[in-house]
């Protein structure tokens, strides 16, 4: 999920404040597919990701693109407004009740010596690694990926050489939305979904990408691992209630000592 936020910011330079809300929609989509077709959430990733790509592309092309050159506070207000609309739409459609999926492997875990590894979490981690690798390969080796990177490096230069920047921005937002869709489908196996779930995850994604470095794909993965491990260790050895305190403490440390994030580039 944080990867999507980082990709969108890295290229489009728009901070997606509706990121958590978009993930919540993906979670609902997975529950609907499970209820209607008994489609496993990990298989549902394919149709949900495809739908989210289209949604992300259209959102960027129709709504966000006109704001690209406007002041940052306008972009901020736009995306906060989108987030509020999404939450209220979900409340109207699904109601305030929690929805979930119940699959066989949800309560299973692997015993490796003294360690217990949660099967659903392991699968979610696997999906995240596959998605990150695919995205990395796309940006590294495909012509479109290289063109998107060119837009990220030099907006004016990309326009001068004739790249269709608006189309490439929309593609990037679509890819960011795909990351959100994959995260949502994986998350629904771990967490019940309610409409107000989004903001907490948006905040978490911000913490992760700021620690890892805004715009850095590797940084998003590293940030996620660091935040997860620091919270788990703090909970285990100090006090479970203080888990979040440690992740935010880490955020402040990074902002003080390396404002661009651990793998971010200084601008």
């Amino acid at each position: 999920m944080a990867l999507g936020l980082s990709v969108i910011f890295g290229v489009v330079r728009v901070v997606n404040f509706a990121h958590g809300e978009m993930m919540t929609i993906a979670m609902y989509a997975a529950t609907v597919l499970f209820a209607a077709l008994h489609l496993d959430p990990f298989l549902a990733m394919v149709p949900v990701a495809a739908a989210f790509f289209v949604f992300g592309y259209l959102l960027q092309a129709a709504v966000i693109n006109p704001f690209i050159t406007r002041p940052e506070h306008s972009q901020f207000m736009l995306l906060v407004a989108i987030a509020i609309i999404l939450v209220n739409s979900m409340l109207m459609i699904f109601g305030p009740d929690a929805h979930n999926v119940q699959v066989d492997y949800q309560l299973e875990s692997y015993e490796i010596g003294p360690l217990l590894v949660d099967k659903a979490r392991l699968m979610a981690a696997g999906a995240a690694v596959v998605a990150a690798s695919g995205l990395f390969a796309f940006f590294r080796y495909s012509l479109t990926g290289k063109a998107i990177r060119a837009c990220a490096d030099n907006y004016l230069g990309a326009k001068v050489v004739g790249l269709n920047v608006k189309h490439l921005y929309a593609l990037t937002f679509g890819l960011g939305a795909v990351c959100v869709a994959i995260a949502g489908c994986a998350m629904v196996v771990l967490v019940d979904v309610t409409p107000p779930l989004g903001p907490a995850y948006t905040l978490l994604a911000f913490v992760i990408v700021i620690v890892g470095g805004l715009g850095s794909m590797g940084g998003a993965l590293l940030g996620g691992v660091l935040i997860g491990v620091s919270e788990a260790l703090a909970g285990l050895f100090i006090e479970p209630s203080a888990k979040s305190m440690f992740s935010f403490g880490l955020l402040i440390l990074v902002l003080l000592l390396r404002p661009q994030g651990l793998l971010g580039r200084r601008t």
Partner: protein
Amino acid sequence: MQRRQFNKALAAAGALAAISPLNIARAQGKPLKVGVILPRSGYLGFIGQSCQKGADLAPGVIKDMLGVNVELMNADFESNVDTARTRAERLIQEGANVLVGPFDSGAASAIAQVAEQRGMPFVINIAAAPQITEQGYKFVFRNFQTAQDIVRNGLSLIGELFQATNTIPRSAVFMHVNDTFGQAMAKGIGAAMPRLTQLPFKIVDQIGYDPAAKDLSVEVSKAKASNADFLLLVCRLNDSIILRREMVKQKWSPMGIVSPGSPGMYEEQYFKTLGKLSEYSISNVPWYNPKSSVTKRVEAAFKKMNPKDNLVFHGLNAGFTFEAILIAADAYKRAGSTDPKALADAIRQTNIKEKMSLGGPIKFNEKGQVEGIGSACVQNLNMLPTVVLPKDAATAKPIFPAPTYKKA
């Protein structure tokens, strides 16, 4: 005083005396506007909606019982204490005569401040933090056990449970939500345990956690590492579901899960979401008397309004919410006025013997607190919350230790 002045005064007094019954009649004719503030969305949403069912049936049942018209003004505080405060302000501005709610201690504290500042009677349906009725408030009333009462009754029932099942657990790990209610319960248990020497177990570890947590893996692994015989749990609904699942994932099967008095494990959503995993969880909570005539009226209205639901899953939430509105309506009937001060004075004089909850009559002490509300040991058996203690109210025998979890 001159004769003419005396005659005028006498005439005025006579006219006033003649009109006052009409005033009462007029007051009784217009409905009592009850502002119902509940967490119908957010992490307490399920319980808020369960409470709402009790509010929704109240006008009809109360009209039958007392002949009083009640008009509900519903507000959702979205499981957010700040929102609770603003919703209370708005209900007062919109003309509520009395406030009822809100299920949550943090929200109850916030609404109590608003009610006291604005001189608006506030009847708490469910909220246990003791400090709410320790502030010297004049307009705040609570028909629910305080955390100390819940803990005292809950721990006492735990002792009875062990006696009834001939078990002697030696250790417990105490997990609790760290919100206002959870902290109050933790404080109550910390104070009560050293005095309760008849209980055979010691608390070997205490773990607080966020009630809105999405992941409790660290907390459960810490609890498992304590090697305690059973889990003493003060929870809410969503976290109790996450916690139960996590226990299965981490293959932790203590003798049982026992709540000394908290919501969550007897709620319908707990059964619906967890299926067989919901079985054998125990909650020692204020409960309703299924044999009371008021319960029967409420049950009939509940079935009519919610044909797919079973009152047993909503008895506590809907029951105490209904009773809070009943208290307000009863006071309105006696006061004959919607004047806030007159209503508050009438609520203070409440003496309702026919009620739904276990325990003695509804009578407020000088702090605005009802004393003597009874608790029951409720165990999840055959997918239903079932009273297993005290013996005179029990419909089944308690099962402890719980059979080891097998795949559902």
